[in-house]
């Protein structure tokens, strides 16, 4: 039995979207970790403040949150496909 002919197209969509989820989480982690510890490791006297918050925190957590929200919106609108959940066979 060749796999290609039988694969439910909805599964391909699902697999791709799960990979997108993994990629987003990874990007989210790198941003969060990089700015928090990259900038946060400086001596406190060198911190700048954005909207009153320490710069490392603002970029890592506040901006990071805004960016990941934007990324989720873009990914959902552009790449996520609406698939039917009910099986066609059920109609029998």
């Amino acid at each position, binding site marked *: 039995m060749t796999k290609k002919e039988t694969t439910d197209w909805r599964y391909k969509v699902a697999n791709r*979207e799960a990979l997108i*989820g993994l990629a987003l989480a990874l990007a989210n982690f790198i941003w969060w970790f990089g700015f928090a510890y990259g900038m946060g490791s400086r001596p406190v006297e060198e911190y700048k403040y954005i909207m009153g918050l320490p710069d490392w925190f603002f970029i890592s957590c506040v901006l990071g949150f805004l960016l*990941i929200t934007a990324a989720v919106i873009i990914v959902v609108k552009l790449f996520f*496909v609406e698939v039917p*959940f009910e099986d066609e066979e059920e109609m029998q």
Partner: protein
Amino acid sequence: MNWEVIIPLIVFLVIIFFIGIWSSRKGAQVEEGGFLKDYFLGGRELGGFVLAMTMVATYGSASSFLGGPGTAYTMGFGWVLLAMTQVVTGYFVLMILGKKFAIMARKYDALTLVDFLKARYNSAPVVILSAAAIIIFLFSAMAAQWIGGARLVESLTGMSYNTALFIFAVSVLVYVTIGGFRAVAVTDAVQGGVMVVGTLVLLVGVIVAGGGVPNIMGDLINENPNLVTPFGPDGGLSKAYVSSFWILVGVGVVGLPQIAVRSMSYKNSRSMHRALIIGTVVTGIIMLNMHLIGVFARPILPGIDVGDKVIPLISMEVLPAWLAGIVLAAPMAAIMSTVDSLLILVSSTVVKDVYLNYIKPDASIKAIKRASFGVTAVLGVIVYILALNPPDLLIFLNLFAFGGLEAAFIWPIVLGLYWRHANKFGAIASMVVGIGSYIAIHYYNEANGNLFGVHTVTVPVVLSLIAFIVFSLLMKQKAYDFEGIGKGEVA
């Protein structure tokens, strides 16, 4: 008694109560055969908003609203950084389980997580292990939340613990028993809304009382400059430890049964897409606000030594009493929305996975109905009695409820969905190794400090993955045919 605080709380309880009852009326209209699906899964028809809110609210518990901010008060910005790892849950769980889980659950006709595992692995030990893990751990987790809820009412109102517990228990129990999953999800949506609004109001109140954010920062730095670094007041919050929370409260949440079951409850792809966006936004706002409030409270109200009291005390300090009552409905809402979800989940496990699987597979619709209402109510009453005077065993089990369940379930769920060679041997090994190593490492860490400097959950999640893969390959079976799933395999 502080009536200005109590009245808004009572109003909140009454509103939740009636929403729960009202949403249950829809359940009365379903045809007889659909009862179980309706009672335990809301008929698989949640829309995007309710889905997002019920996921966030179920997940956001006493720890996000009382414990977490309390720790942020002590630890400073390092703990807010840690708390923000939870934003990932807003999109990750639904994207990973996502459509595949929804499609497979419908093909199997699965109503519970155990149904899904049963159909996928076709193994009695998997069913028994997973049902036992859910019942034991989530029952204890539920009791712990129940205790937290009663303590909160007690501290806010000055009522005795027992009275507070009674009020709390009755208000949750009635609507969950009558309304089932739909009542839980709809009240969760309202409770989620209360949490968002409550945290926003309180954050503004705290910033104003502290004389603006720059002023608060100045005070924190004057007290201890380490409070504004990512490393905690004594520099003890390591990168590895904080990062390991990405597993515990981030991606590992995929393995929590109370969250996973919601991923099979939504109506269609569109609900899921909306929920992804709403869930991310709401989780982020709640976590950021609550933990910032914890940190900002420090210069305003120094010297609080019980972490759980930070939020109640700061609310009453910076807000007028009536507004504090409304804001304090938020942690109430967080606790109630977690408790109600756990109650219906444990009940579904007992009724669907134990009673209908092993005790009375041929029960009539009438018997099933009676069992469903009966089990939910009886479970609630048992939790209530236990919470009156919590036994040590309960406290002990609750320690493992969160991380232990993640280590047990994450791979059987995720690999069961996406790996053709995942089989029952892998699943059993993974669950046993996950829970076993979690308990062992918990004790090791208590005695010797954190192994590898990371949170307890990290190593068991890795070990259970290895066990899963090794045993699946070792005890090789025919690759699973995702295409050939028969209709209604578990029904």
